């Protein structure tokens, strides 16, 4: 090929690149709420607040890939329910224009990949100019998303992640807030439980990942400090297809009084199934993520991190019933109204995170309804929202007087830190005023 032809081809490729890159303007929404109305593109020149027909709530969520299970079962149902009910109620009130505007969800799929997530967040912030930015799914993605929210001045309130590493990040990103309780509040409660119940030895299976490192990295020194003997530890990879029976064999050999599993929900459940099969029944069995899901209710006596239930508070009960009835009506809850299993159902109650995730929605809503106004770019002024969130209390299902301290919540904001399945209820058992039942130790025998 002659160099002239090559130059022509390169020019054509460059033209194609610019056409695809969206130089000509913002692309239409990739996905969103079915009921939502169309977006009015903000215009810098001659823009007026009354031009706006909706508020755009943007997010990059893992709808496919390894994290999709968390989005489908834990986070997604909260946001969908919130937006749906918000719009049924006429939308979200914007004080600066004195009326409600419907909310529109504009969600991109990051395919559980950090680089894709970053690119899509940049597009949401720069090109789509969404009004509100939702956080991504999981701790790891939140670590990458927080600097972007900060860079573009967006408020980001996350129920999707917390922990020591996230804590370090949000110390440098004042626009980012976390709501979920995690190792920093749960491990002290676990240590206290061990101490008060006289537990003397422990064996831990943990996922060889940020999650496992956060939890076991905090638990090990905390338990050693109170004299608990570490009989052994068993790291497992985060990949699927791991033979969990080996972990149970190692735990049985160690003969520890307590057994901890700090892995991902499906892994924790598989370990429990293997323990049940092998008849391994330590005095204290505490599951990490997944232990608080309804799907673990059959594991009588198993403990989990969390925690709350319908007895925790009146507003917690109302929220729980509301969530249940909403998804039962949609036919997506794992149980039918009469309590029989719904084979089509994919939505479970999570007695750890759900109340935190819904509180996130409430905080966003209250911040907008009290401090929402459009800036010169024609989008909600997020700087004002950040100031409002920092300075005010929020009336949420988690806490009537929810208030951030250094962009996180103090331990006393939560309804509990440890739960235990007792007769189908995830009872709060940590030694605090939130306890709804005394811990049952030793754990009852497995019921197949």
């Amino acid at each position: 090929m002659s160099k002239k032809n090559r130059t022509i081809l390169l020019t054509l490729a460059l033209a194609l690149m610019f056409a695809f890159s969206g130089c000509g303007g913002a692309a239409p929404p990739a996905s969103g709420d079915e009921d939502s109305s169309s977006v009015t593109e903000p215009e810098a020149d001659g823009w007026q607040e009354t031009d706006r027909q909706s508020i755009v709530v943007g997010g990059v969520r893992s709808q496919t890939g390894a994290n999709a299970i968390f989005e489908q079962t834990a986070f997604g149902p909260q946001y969908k329910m919130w937006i749906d009910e918000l719009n049924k109620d006429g939308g979200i009130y914007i004080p600066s224009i004195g009326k409600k505007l419907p909310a529109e969800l504009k969600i991109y799929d990051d395919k559980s990949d950090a680089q894709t997530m970053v690119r899509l967040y940049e597009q949401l912030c720069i090109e789509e100019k969404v009004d509100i930015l939702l956080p991504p799914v999981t701790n790891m993605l939140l670590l990458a998303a927080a600097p972007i929210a900060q860079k573009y001045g967006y408020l980001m309130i996350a129920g999707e992640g917390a922990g020591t590493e996230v804590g370090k990040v949000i110390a440098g990103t004042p626009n980012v807030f976390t709501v979920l309780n995690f190792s920093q509040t749960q491990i002290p409660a676990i240590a206290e439980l061990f101490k008060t119940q006289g537990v003397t030895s422990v064996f831990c299976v943990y996922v060889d990942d940020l999650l496992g490192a956060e939890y076991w990295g905090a638990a090990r020194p905390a338990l050693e400090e109170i004299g608990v003997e570490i009989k052994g530890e068993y790291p497992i990879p985060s990949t699927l297809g791991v033979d969990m029976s080996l972990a149970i064999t190692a735990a049985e050999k160690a003969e520890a009084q307590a057994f901890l599993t700090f892995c991902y929900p499906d892994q924790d459940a598989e370990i429990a199934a293997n323990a049940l099969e092998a008849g391994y029944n330590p005095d204290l069995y505490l599951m990490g993520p997944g232990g608080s899901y309804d799907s673990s209710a059959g594991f009588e006596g198993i403990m989990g991190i969390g925690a709350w239930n319908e007895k925790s508070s009146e507003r917690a009960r109302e929220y729980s019933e509301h969530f249940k009835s909403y998804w039962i009506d949609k036919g997506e809850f794992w149980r039918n109204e009469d309590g029989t299993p719904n084979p089509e159902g994919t939505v479970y109650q999570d007695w750890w995170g759900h109340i935190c995730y819904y509180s996130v929605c409430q905080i966003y809503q209250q911040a907008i309804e009290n401090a929402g106004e459009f800036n010169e770019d024609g989008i909600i002024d997020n700087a004002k929202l950040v100031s409002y969130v920092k300075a005010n209390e929020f009336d949420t299902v988690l806490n009537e007087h929810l208030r951030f301290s250094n962009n996180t919540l103090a331990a006393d904001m939560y309804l509990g830190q440890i739960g235990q399945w007792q007769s189908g209820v995830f009872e709060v058992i940590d030694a605090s005023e939130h306890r709804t039942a005394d811990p049952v130790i030793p754990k009852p025998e497995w019921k197949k």
Partner: protein
Amino acid sequence: MELLKRSFFGGKAAKIQFFAIIIAIVVLFFVPNFGSAYLPLFLAWVITYAVMSLAWTLFSGKTGYVSLASAAFYGTGMYVQAALGSNLPIVVSMIIAAAASFGVAFGIGLVTLRLRGVYFTIFTFGLSLFLNKFIHWYEVKFFHTKGHMVLAYDNLTVYYCVLVVFAIFLLVVIPMNKSRFGLALDCIGQNEDSAQHVGVNTTMTKVLAFAVSAAPVGAVGAAMATTIGYVDPDIAFKLLASFMPVLMAIFGGTHSVYGPIVGAIVFYSLQDYLLRELPGAYMIIFGCVMVAVILLMPKGIFGVIDTIIARRKRGFDGEVIGDV
């Protein structure tokens, strides 16, 4: 110097090529001023993939040794940035990242480039996996955590950083292709035993080419790490980063310097568009395009165009084209 003269000023065509490259770089320098604020990031990714694809072609396209180590070099660059980025200017950490990737490739090359065929490919694939798992183990074992935060830079700075790497690499690759070194690589690709018989130090030539091709990949890895803000082994050593440059190079054509660049532009633009507009069908369409390219255009876009032009020329010369 003589080589540079011959490469860029040795005849009318070489001069046109040289000035076209310079004009393209100058245009790319000013382009971000005329697009949306997202454009620099988009272009930075396109250029990053162009560099990776070009680097793959420099070694694998010429020697026929299919390397799947791009993710290893890219990830090395990212980790260098994560480790040093807070204390050093980005340009310095990019140079160190390039040197680190060069060093990794040189060391690995010395050990493995005596292997041939599929054994080399499997080894390079395993290298990315090994680095991923090793760093993962190291971080969890000794630091009870996974990953590092990376000091973020604005998109425009990152764009100019990768653009400079691209320009330098392009201005190195073109003369290299015309040099004795490039000729030696071509010989190895055609028949390694023959190359050895005519006096080419095949092992050292391959090792050097492998290492030279790794350096710019490390540099762009360091620059792009700053757009993500957080790097862990799964992000840095993602296996897709080993396959994408190969696909882009095959798509554009591996027999020309411009093939991988066109492949990167088309592939990344398509990916970016589909991710937003057809997220559910993104991988299906992507897969179909790839299968179609391999079946219908085994020599890539440039190969097809070369064939068409050659046929037309034969046609003008009075030769019979096809069954006409």
